[in-house]
């Protein structure tokens, strides 16, 4: 019976080091510790180890912080530059798409007049315009935003090779 109490107390002591004890557990632990030298010793042993862990004093190499700050600054500048390049590429892509769309609309509207000069029907001219002008230009403007990504993949592959 006594052994059970000691084991239970040791478990509570262990538990108290890693989690919060309930009020009942705290009371039970406190009451037992008052009269049990063996469990007091167990608790003191644990406390001594925990205190000993504080006795390791690490020091930083003098230049470590400066090196870290320098690397972080370089990375921040690079990320900012990449971000600006990506933003500028997106604006360019948007402008390209807008101009392609406006140009294509104008040509589409004028197809009736142009068909007369080209000696073909408006439908034939529109098909040619669609295949040769409008679709390729819209496709290229759609692909524009992918260019930074493609460049990045290429750069990474080059990095792997070197």
């Amino acid at each position, binding site marked *: 019976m006594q052994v059970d109490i000691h084991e239970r107390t040791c478990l509570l002591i*262990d538990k108290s080091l*890693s989690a919060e004890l309930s009020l009942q557990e705290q009371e039970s632990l406190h009451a037992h510790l008052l009269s049990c030298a063996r469990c007091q010793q167990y608790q003191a042993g*644990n406390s001594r180890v925990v205190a*000993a*862990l504080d006795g390791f004093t690490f020091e930083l190499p003098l230049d*470590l912080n400066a090196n*870290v700050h320098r690397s972080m600054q370089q990375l*921040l500048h690079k*990320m900012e530059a990449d971000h600006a390049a990506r933003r500028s590429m997106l604006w360019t892509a948007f402008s390209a798409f807008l101009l392609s769309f406006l140009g294509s609309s104008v040509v589409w509207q004028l197809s009736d007049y142009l068909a007369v000069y080209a000696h073909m029907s408006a439908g034939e001219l529109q098909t040619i315009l669609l295949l040769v002008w409008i679709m390729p230009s819209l496709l290229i403007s759609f692909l524009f935003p992918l260019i930074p990504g493609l460049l990045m993949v290429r750069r990474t592959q080059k990095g792997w090779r070197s």
Partner: protein
Amino acid sequence: MLEHAISWTGAVETETQLIARGLRARDAVLLHDLVERFQLRLVRYLVFFLGRRDHVDDLVQETWLRVVERGKSYDGRSPFQAWIFAIARNLAIDHLRRKTGVSLDSSEDSGKNAPAELLASSAPSPFELVARTEDAVKLATSIAKLEPIYREALLLRFQESLSLQEISITVGAPVPTVSSRIHRGLAMLRTHLEGESRAS
């Protein structure tokens, strides 16, 4: 400086939320402040995890660069040190895997499979070099021999005061496993310390 701050919405931000916001904005001043505050703890954590001092500076540097790159993923719900230690831990594991082909993270007994180079060396361990109290000197050898997962659990619990839940997130193990690591690590060190005391 980072204790509490009133945001533009008027709500009081906790320190971790403030850090999360600063990391999202890549605030250079905040990053500088974080390095000053957490550098020593990061070094200490990596030495405890790896059980050696070499390569720690490189890993520390790499960890901070990861913090800058992945700052947006920190949501401020857990302590910052738990998050940064998890990053450092993953980098340290990758480093060991590259260097020795051994993972310190695969199982409870993983440390036993670590190469001799990691476990035995004639040079004093990093713990012997930084032990400043009598008990720390007595413990230094046994800490160096302790498996990394136990050293790490003891450090996070008693030096960093992280809760079991937070340690569990950091080390990627369930709470009962973390609890068991703490108790087993403590028991091993207690036995060693008591043995040393009896011998002297």
